[in-house]
Every structure is written in structure tokens, then in C-alpha cells.
């Protein structure tokens, strides 16, 4: 085991949004003001919850079927697929991805959401999927609608899917949102535009992929995810095939 003293931030702060982003009003009273204290990466940061196939149900990755009451959910069926990678491009297997989203009308199945749009009785908008040995995941859902919020006059969130990803270590934890190409609301969204880096913003926009599209069934989108990792390898990792 090597010394744990030398380190840099595992989060690339040129890519991730700063805490304070005034156009997004909720940051004003919630953004920490004091500088973050650099933390050495110890066992506490370099381990994390381990997930496996026992944690996933057979319909968890199909949001068009996992909540059926009396028919299929309304809306445009889509397939979302991609890979979860580390910063060296190595696939992250057994990464748990949690999914939640609004329905096709832009309404969440949540008590706090009072948007005057219909609830779909056959759609909760929640799912889970695990990456395979190649870091690949795939889920089927309904394209979510845009919805209004009260951040500023006539504010609308672009269509998006919330994604929560567990990598190998607690340090690699990521919660983000996936957007859709060509959405005219993207340049107007203070949440997406909290990301300081234009290339970073582009990476949250899925790409339409005709090879993923299934004939007479569903349009396909590709969305790859890169998780931050440790800045060193202090522990022997039997799977490691590369050196830093």
C-alpha cells in the first residue's frame, strides 16, 4: 500500500457545476460558501456499495412495462443505451444506474409536482439497470415531456431523464441528467448551463443512434457516462491490468 498523502481533487471542477450559480435560484441559499477541504483518498472514499444481479428485477430496465395497470403508457417509446467508463476509458461493470423521469406529458409521479398535466396510470417513470461486463447498459422508456418550473418567468425544463450511477467506489458517485438533441429549451436552462464547460454540456445531450432504433418499435439514443476515479492506486486490485 502506498502513501495516501499526495492527491488532487477527484472531481474535475472545470467540468462540474460550481455550487453557486445565481441563474438557478435554488443555489443562492443552498450553495456552500466556504472552500472545500481537500480530502486524502482513504479506504472510506475508495470503497463503496457493491451491487449485483440480485439487486435488479426482471422489468426494472423497462419503464414501458414495469408499471402497467390497464395498458401501455402513452408517449414515444425510446431505447437508451451506452457505456459506463472510467477516465481511462475502461468499462465499469456492475455499475448500478437508477432512472427517474417525468411522463410524456411532463408530469412526475410525485406528490410535490402540481403541474397541471395528466398522470399516466401505466407509468411511474422509475427504473434500474446494471452495466454488464463491457460496462454497457440499456433501458426502454417513454420520452419525457418538458415541464414548467418557477425559477424565473416562463421557465421550462427541457426534456430530461435523471440518472444516478454507482461506480466501483463511493468517490465515483454521480447524479446527473440526460437531455435530448435539438431541444430548443437547452440554451435557456439554468441547470444545464450551470456546467461551466460547453463540451461538458454537450456530453449530457444524448445522440440519436439509428443502429439502436428498432424498426416499428422504438427510437434509439446513445448516452455514455464517464465516472471520476481515484488519483492513484493505493490498493492492490486483482482486476487491474494497467498502471498509473
Amino acid at each position, binding site marked *: 500500500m502506498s502513501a495516501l498523502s499526495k492527491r488532487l481533487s477527484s472531481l474535475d471542477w472545470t467540468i462540474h457545476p460550481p455550487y453557486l450559480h445565481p441563474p438557478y435560484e435554488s*443555489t443562492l441559499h443552498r*450553495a456552500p460558501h466556504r472552500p472545500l477541504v*481537500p480530502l486524502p483518498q482513504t479506504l*472510506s472514499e475508495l470503497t463503496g456499495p457493491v451491487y449485483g444481479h440480485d439487486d435488479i428485477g426482471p422489468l426494472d430496465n423497462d419503464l414501458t412495462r414495469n408499471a402497467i395497470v390497464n395498458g401501455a403508457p402513452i408517449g414515444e417509446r425510446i431505447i437508451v443505451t451506452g457505456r459506463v467508463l472510467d*477516465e481511462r476509458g475502461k468499462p465499469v461493470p456492475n455499475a448500478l444506474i437508477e432512472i427517474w423521469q417525468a411522463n410524456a406529458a411532463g408530469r412526475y409521479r410525485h406528490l410535490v409536482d402540481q403541474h397541471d398535466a395528466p398522470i399516466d396510470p401505466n407509468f*411511474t417513470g422509475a427504473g434500474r439497470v446494471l452495466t454488464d461486463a463491457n460496462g454497457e447498459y440499456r433501458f426502454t422508456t417513454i420520452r419525457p415531456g418538458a415541464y414548467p418550473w418557477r425559477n424565473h418567468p416562463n421557465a421550462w425544463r427541457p426534456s430530461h431523464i*435523471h440518472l444516478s450511477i454507482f461506480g466501483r467506489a463511493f468517490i465515483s458517485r454521480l447524479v446527473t441528467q440526460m437531455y435530448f438533441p435539438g431541444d430548443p429549451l437547452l440554451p435557456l436552462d439554468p441547470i444545464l448551463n450551470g456546467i461551466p464547460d460547453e463540451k461538458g454540456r454537450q456530453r449530457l445531450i444524448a445522440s440519436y443512434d439509428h443502429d439502436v432504433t428498432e424498426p416499428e418499435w422504438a427510437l434509439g439514443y446513445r448516452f455514455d457516462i464517464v465516472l471520476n476515479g481515484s488519483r492513484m492506486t493505493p490498493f492492490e486490485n486483482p482486476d487491474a491490468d494497467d498502471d498509473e
Partner: protein
Amino acid sequence: MTMSNEQYPQTPSQTVGPFFHFGMVPEGGANVLASDETHGERILIRGRVLDGEGVAVPDALLEIWQADANGCYNHPDDPRHAQADPHFRGFGRADTVDDGKFAIQTIKPGPVPFDGERMQAPHINVRIFSRGLLTHAYTRIYFSDEEEANAADPVLNLVDPERRHTLIARRQEQGGAPVYVFDIKLQGRDETVFFDP
């Protein structure tokens, strides 16, 4: 800062938003970490999440990750993984409610190795997600009845002594059971220490 030899830039973070519960907090809750078989002292951690105006944050999600009673993480990269308590995963979640309150039932973790020589005082790792946090915040819960271990803890010693108290949960007895009180202040006076791991 970032290193230059990486080919794959990180995917940016976005806020968890206000509507995460149905996707991330299973029915029945995930704030009870220990089962009947788990080894260790049962503890309750409770507190509130407050914003910079002192207003309760009713829509935060806390994620906790901790070692077992012997300080082992249930993860293959812990060199003592084979000895880890099989009845303790070490991960849990608690969402805050209207008055910003949360509660976590778990066991008190043991001390965790730091660098092969020094030990870390018992602690619980905490991520905070909420509307208004575009990137999550990261902190630790230490325990007020571990004064000696806390004084020697290599991480606490990186923190301004005047701010260390924000990381230490205060032990109280409640009906004979240990309760630790830990408030999280996102901003302003007595702002909780947040880390950059």
C-alpha cells in the same frame, strides 16, 4: 485541478432535483442499515439540514457509506474484506422531511486504517444531494464520545480547529439507547465542513 493524461473527460453532475424519491428512496425506506444479525452497537443518528438562511431543507437526500463495527468495508478493495460482517452492506439513504429532519438507524463503525500506520477515528461518509446543489456535497460524521481518536484523526486534523465541531455528532442518551445529533448547515454561520475528495 485535473491531470492531463486522461483521455475521457468526466460526465458533469446535475442536481438531483425535488422529485428523486420515487427513483431513489424505495418504499419502506433505506435508512435502517443493520439487521438482527449485524454485529455492533445500535445507534440512531438524527439531525436537520438547513440552508444559509437557517430555513429547513425539506427535499434533501443523504447517502451514507460506512465500515462495520470492526472498521472493515464490505468491498473487495478493503484488504480486510474477508473479515467484513456479511450482514452489513454499509450503505443507506435518508431523505429529509418538512422540517428538514432526517434519521438513520445503523451501528457505530470501528476505526478505519488511514495509511498503513495511522488509523482514522470512527466515522460515517455522507453525500448530500438536493435541489439547488448542482454537484453533491461530501462530508463526514464523527462521534463526540471518541475524543482521543478524533484528536489523532488525520482527516480532522486537516480541518480548521474552529470548524471541526461541525463534523462531530453529539451523543445523547434517549431511553437508554445512544442517539447522535448531527445537523448539516449548507451555508453561512457554522457552515458544515465539506470535503473535496
